[in-house]
């Protein structure tokens, strides 16, 4: 039996095969570019030498970065957002973590209702969450302001904290806690020396998630803040008359800070695993 040698694949042949094999990767690259376009735009325009209205490119300048508080209200709103963010994160993480432990480590009546109660805020549009809270505050004659915003943020962040921490608890090998008790640690010591350190990455992740949800929240905040201004609210309100370039500076800075935190977190956890 004679075997024939296949003809050398032509250039277009090879190109076509490479293309079909990597189609998905090419697509993903395009999708990533698409994701980053507005971020790149925002970053670029943070260097624009514009007056009050940052719509047309007028020249490169570092002034905005050197003086981010130059435009009125930019820094004030950022500081407000940070204050709200930190307090809401602390409260939501604390309350949510406790619920996660209850769900993940104990048996009790009303588990299904608890799960439902946790799930519902995540399944409700922000308009409804914001409007209902406002309705309650109005009916109680409470004026919206800083604390109503904090209350609202804690409310919608708890569910996300619970889901995140619960997942981490579920991945914990129960035999580690049994080993701790076998090695003379009572219930409190087991929690302190074994359970908590191992769940901590989940709690940290949940806190980060809660903070980003809080900082970037607009709709619920808008409904419940009255005259109190957070950064997203400031951007929305100033969209009509012109957003100062300093807002772009803040947005870009948040992006880089968050990116660095996440990358550092990844590197640290990879270090822990390296042989």
């Amino acid at each position: 039996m004679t075997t024939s040698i296949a003809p050398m694949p032509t250039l277009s042949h090879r190109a076509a095969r490479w293309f079909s094999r990597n189609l998905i990767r090419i697509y993903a690259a395009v999708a990533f570019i698409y994701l980053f376009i507005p971020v790149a735009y925002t970053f670029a325009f943070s260097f624009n030498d514009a007056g009050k209205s940052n719509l047309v490119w007028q020249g490169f300048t570092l002034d905005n970065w050197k003086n981010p508080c130059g435009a009125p209200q930019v820094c004030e709103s950022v500081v407000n957002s940070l204050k709200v963010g930190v307090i809401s994160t602390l409260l939501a993480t604390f309350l949510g973590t406790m619920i996660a432990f209850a769900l993940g480590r104990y048996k009790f009546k009303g588990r299904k209702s608890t799960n439902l109660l946790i799930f519902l805020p995540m399944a409700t549009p922000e308009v409804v969450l914001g409007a209902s809270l406002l309705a309650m505050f109005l009916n109680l004659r409470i004026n919206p302001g800083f604390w109503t915003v904090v209350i609202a943020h804690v409310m919608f962040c708890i569910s996300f904290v619970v889901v995140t921490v619960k997942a981490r608890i579920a991945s914990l090998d129960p035999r580690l806690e049994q080993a701790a008790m076998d090695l003379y640690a009572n219930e409190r010591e087991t929690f302190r020396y074994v359970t908590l350190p191992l769940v901590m990455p989940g709690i940290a992740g949940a806190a980060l998630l809660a903070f980003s949800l809080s900082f970037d929240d607009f709709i619920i905040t808008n409904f419940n803040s009255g005259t109190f201004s957070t950064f997203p609210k400031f951007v929305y309100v100033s969209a009509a008359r012109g957003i100062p370039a300093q807002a772009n500076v803040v947005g870009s800075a948040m992006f880089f800070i968050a990116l660095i935190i996440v990358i550092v977190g990844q590197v640290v956890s990879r270090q822990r695993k390296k042989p």
Partner: protein
Amino acid sequence: MAFLHGVATGHSQVKNALKGRSLTPYLLLAPGLIWLITFFIIPIFSLASTSTMVRPDGAQVGVYVQELRFANYVDAFLINKDQYLRSFIYAALATLVALAIAYPLAYAIAFKSGKYRNILLVLVIAPFFTSFLLRTIAWTQILADQGPVVSAIKVLPFIDDLFRINNTSTAVVIGLAYNFLPFMTLPLYASLERIDPRTLEAAGDLYANGLTTFRKVTLPLSMPGVVAGTLLTFIPAAGDYVNAAILGNPSTKMIGNVIESRFFAVVDYPTAAALSFTLMATILILVSLYIRKSGTDELV
């Protein structure tokens, strides 16, 4: 002693540990659940109660009296049925667009990314560290009439000179899809990542080509992710008003815009409350039908 015995045994079959008489879980649950009940459940009731109120004749703006006027709902719905319909249509379109964009992306990260996987996941979430308002406004400027994108499209022969993207319903849908991409991508990625690649190899071994493997193996196995992703996209999209406000025009108003204006511009709390309540009820019904049909019970 037996009371607290087994409190932290941590065995996943907690049946052994607890005889159901410990107080600890309830103490842990109480603060958070009370917060949720006070600031989520009770407000819903407040909303319901406001929705049936009426402004007495001659009263000041913002003063209402409870009269259990359920006709508020009928009135509100009739006036705003266009916006309602539009909201659900935009949300559905945006969900489909997001799914179309996110699925291949999630697939690429799950199966074709090798050691860059974690970096890519970070890159998917990263754009959303910038304020979402800044991003949306950036889109209006990128898609501006004199901007590079529209100019480039106008070069094409079959596009007429009046073509624009900004302030159209197209822009609103694109904006919605873009905003919720990570909510679609991450659940998709999570369920795709769980698929053992050897399952796909086994399909190939059993004579299935690429497309068939995808249709018969990958897609069904990724359904939980698809369900989660579409829910996490559709629900907030239906109630959004920021995209419609920034990227749309008066004829693209969604129900969220109406609710917002009824609270702050035209002060008409009962109508706003009725609209909100109807929106929430509709979404809950749609969601439970959807979930029942696709069979995912534990979403939390």
